């Protein structure tokens, strides 16, 4: 599954950096009907986690009110060089991961 991750490649130690993530997902609300009246089953991402060198720094519970192709942006303090890992989990066993590296000087 395609995900766009925006993490600065370099940062100064102690700097507050913004992390942006965008993943492709329909986020079907479960409240819509087809033209012939059948309910379209819910299919959403329910959870998102960001880990920085293994430690959780941001977590989100998502509901049908989150728009399709969930976009999330949040902040963290650049402490050390390493890896950000992103994980999306959702209905019907949906799971997707991505990662990005940072150099902290």
């Amino acid at each position, binding site marked *: 599954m395609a995900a766009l991750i925006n993490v600065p490649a370099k940062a100064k130690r102690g700097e*507050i*950096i913004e992390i942006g993530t965008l993943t492709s997902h329909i986020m079907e*609300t479960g*409240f*819509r*009907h*087809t*033209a012939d009246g059948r309910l*379209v089953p819910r299919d959403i991402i329910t959870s998102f986690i960001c880990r*920085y060198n293994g*430690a959780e*720094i*941001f*977590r*989100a*519970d*998502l*509901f*049908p*009110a*989150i*728009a*399709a192709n*969930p*976009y*999330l*942006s*949040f*902040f*963290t*303090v650049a*402490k050390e060089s390493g890896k950000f890992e992103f994980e999306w989990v959702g209905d019907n066993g949906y799971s997707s991961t991505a990662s990005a590296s940072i150099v902290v000087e």
Partner: protein
Amino acid sequence: MPTTRRRFLSLAGGMTAAGAIPIVTLRPVEATPAMLTAAIRNVVGEAQLRTGKVKLDIPPLVENGNTVPMTVSVASPMTADDYVKSIHIFNEKNPQPNIGNFHLGPAAGRAQVSTRIRLADTQKVVAIARLSDDTFWQVATEVVVTLAACTEEMN
């Protein structure tokens, strides 16, 4: 006395002005439909909800409710003993009152989260922040939506 056009207009104008005041200034933050109140109580419990500290940036007039950009920020130093634990977003008139829960911590550096949401109708959006001292702070914003999301027919 026959109702003249001038008299009718002055009456209508007076009524509009009088009617507008309670909507704009007297609407209390806690006057919400039962579902929204229940969803908020689920998160807050019996704790007192205070107004302030939280800022909700969302367009006041939305053309398409399917993707509404939204940013919540909380005035917090984000230090080891004074930080934002979580941010919770609710709506008043979508089929379900929850929008998202965001769990932060002192390592966030800045208590700010952005995402894009769906709004099914013109309604109130409420953002609540839980601080490290377990106090809860809220803000509510009215959003006018012209094209609704969530419940439309599938094509």
